[in-house]
């Protein structure tokens, strides 16, 4: 330790800085590459939670189009201490048609789009999903609106980035445009009040109107809704609320899921795949870092072979010399990791959280759980210990007198 500390203290500042810089880059590569890849999907998962499912979501069973005893379930939810707010949503399939006034012949292809029309209480829904924040044109619904509709951006052609032959969207539609909706066999002309842009498919592909109107259109006088999104207090466990609902029998009339349960499986699969991909890329970085340390220590040790010989000659144990080189490796890796941790948790993570990376299908964040990050610190230090020990051992093992006299 004495030797190592003195060597580090009195070695070239530039060389030390350069080695630590390489270690910082390696550490960032280890954490950030996989963190951004996973964050790309995590951003999507988080957005799904914030904009669609909230913390717990109840949806219809596969055999029903509505949730029976919705009012009782909503009352139960509102009585739970963990619950902040509840947004009941009426849901119905809808066919939307635009530009019907300019269509010359009935035989011309209609400009239609299909999707789901959701009847919401604008205030409750905004409390839960902050839907008004995603309005990019026009304005959000107010509770007294009638024959007003919000369109998800994926239903409007100018917001759809791909020209998929099997996918149709409404053209020349903007706030104030009249469109026809066909719900439950009823055709109505409504006005587009706003367009909301979201990278969450469930939101971007939906259209929204005030719940009372949709309820009358689909004839749900029993007030049974199609979805109930539940927002919980910040530290409340969604699993506890889900289980309480199941114990109350809500699962007999609805699919009760936490936001995790409701994640599409493909998202989980992509997340796992990206994590694996990230780890593979990180492993290459780890090998590069190990080789760097190996070369640095090897060159250091080979150029100091004579001094290593002298140290052994005057009776310094070879193990002590090896340990001094291993300690130097640990020092470089630890410095790189500490500075890397400061960059990740002090700069990158908060910065990316505040300004997510704008990927086409999600707002990417940097996922770097502290436990996993510390594991990577351990990995880097372990790799550098090995990379430092091997060359030191190679040189220390050489004959003492040969080293002192500079013989081959």
């Amino acid at each position: 330790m004495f030797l190592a500390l003195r060597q580090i203290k009195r070695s070239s500042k530039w060389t030390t800085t350069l080695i630590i810089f390489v270690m910082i880059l390696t550490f960032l590569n280890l954490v950030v590459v996989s963190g951004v890849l996973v964050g790309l999907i995590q951003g999507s998962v988080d957005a799904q939670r914030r904009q669609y499912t909230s913390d717990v979501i109840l949806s219809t069973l596969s055999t029903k189009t509505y949730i029976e005893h919705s009012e009782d379930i909503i009352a139960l939810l509102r009585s739970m201490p963990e619950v902040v707010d509840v947004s009941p949503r009426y849901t119905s399939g809808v066919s939307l048609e635009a530009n019907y006034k300019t269509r010359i012949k009935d035989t011309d292809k209609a400009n239609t789009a299909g999707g789901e029309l959701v009847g919401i209480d604008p205030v409750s829904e905004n409390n839960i999903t902050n839907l008004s924040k995603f309005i990019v044109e026009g304005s959000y619904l107010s509770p007294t609106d009638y024959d007003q509709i919000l369109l998800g951006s994926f239903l409007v052609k100018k917001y759809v980035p791909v020209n998929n032959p099997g996918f149709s969207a409404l053209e020349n539609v903007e706030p104030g445009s009249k469109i026809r909706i066909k719900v439950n066999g009823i055709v109505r002309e409504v006005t587009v009040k706003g367009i909301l842009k979201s990278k969450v498919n469930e939101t971007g592909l939906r259209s929204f109107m005030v719940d009372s109107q949709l309820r009358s259109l689909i004839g749900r006088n029993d007030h049974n809704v199609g979805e109930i999104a539940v927002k919980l207090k910040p530290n409340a466990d969604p699993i506890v609320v889900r289980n309480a609902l199941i114990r109350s029998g809500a699962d007999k009339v609805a699919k009760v899921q936490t936001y995790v349960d409701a994640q599409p499986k493909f998202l989980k699969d992509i997340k796992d795949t990206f994590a694996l991909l990230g780890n593979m890329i990180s492993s290459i970085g780890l090998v590069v870092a190990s080789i760097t340390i190996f070369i640095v220590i090897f060159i250091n040790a080979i150029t100091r072979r004579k001094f290593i010989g002298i140290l052994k000659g005057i009776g310094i144990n070879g193990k002590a010399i090896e340990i001094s080189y291993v300690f130097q490796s640990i020092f470089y890796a630890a410095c790189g990791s500490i500075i890397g941790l400061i960059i990740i948790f002090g700069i990158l993570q908060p910065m990316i959280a505040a300004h997510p990376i704008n990927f086409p299908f999600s707002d990417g964040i940097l996922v770097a759980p502290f436990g996993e990050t510390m594991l990577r610190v351990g990995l880097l230090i372990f790799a550098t210990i090995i990379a430092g020990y091997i060359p030191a051992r190679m040189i220390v093992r050489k004959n003492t007198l040969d080293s002192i006299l500079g013989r081959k």
Partner: protein
Amino acid sequence: MGRSGAGKSTFMYQMSLLDEPTSGEVIINGGHNAARMSNEEKTDFRLTRLGYVFQDYALIPELTALENVALPLLMQDIPQKTAYVQAGEALKRVGLATHMSQLPSQLSGGEQQRVSISRAIAHKPDILFADEPTANLDNESSKVIMDIFLELHRAGQTIIMVTHEPEYGKMAQKIVHLDDGRIVNITKN
């Protein structure tokens, strides 16, 4: 003593447990047979019982004079404070009390060799081995070094020194003359 290539240094390295003879035995310091010692035992023996002064000083460049001298003491698990006091005393003995915090590169050749002697004597070795300690020094510095050796010897330090300078040979109690790897003569002053 002996001319270049006579085997003086080889003989000294074998005696001081830095090298192994191809035949014969090294019995050192009253009964320690080098052939029966493990490498670890030899290392420990060199650390605690022997001292070395090399021709080219052999100081560790990153360590100050004081640290160079303290290093073998620290490796004997002597507490750092005690080791530094002992090292300081050894440096004072060779007249380097004011150079303790200087790095080898900041010292002259003669001063570096005096640091090397301090390192060799700080732990009070049974035998001090010196391999042509004045070979790289000018006359004035060489005289200073030899005066230090004489003073150490007078204080009771056993010194085995390799040299080809007859002038320095006259200072020794016993001179072993070597030629072509063989002892050709042993004389006493």
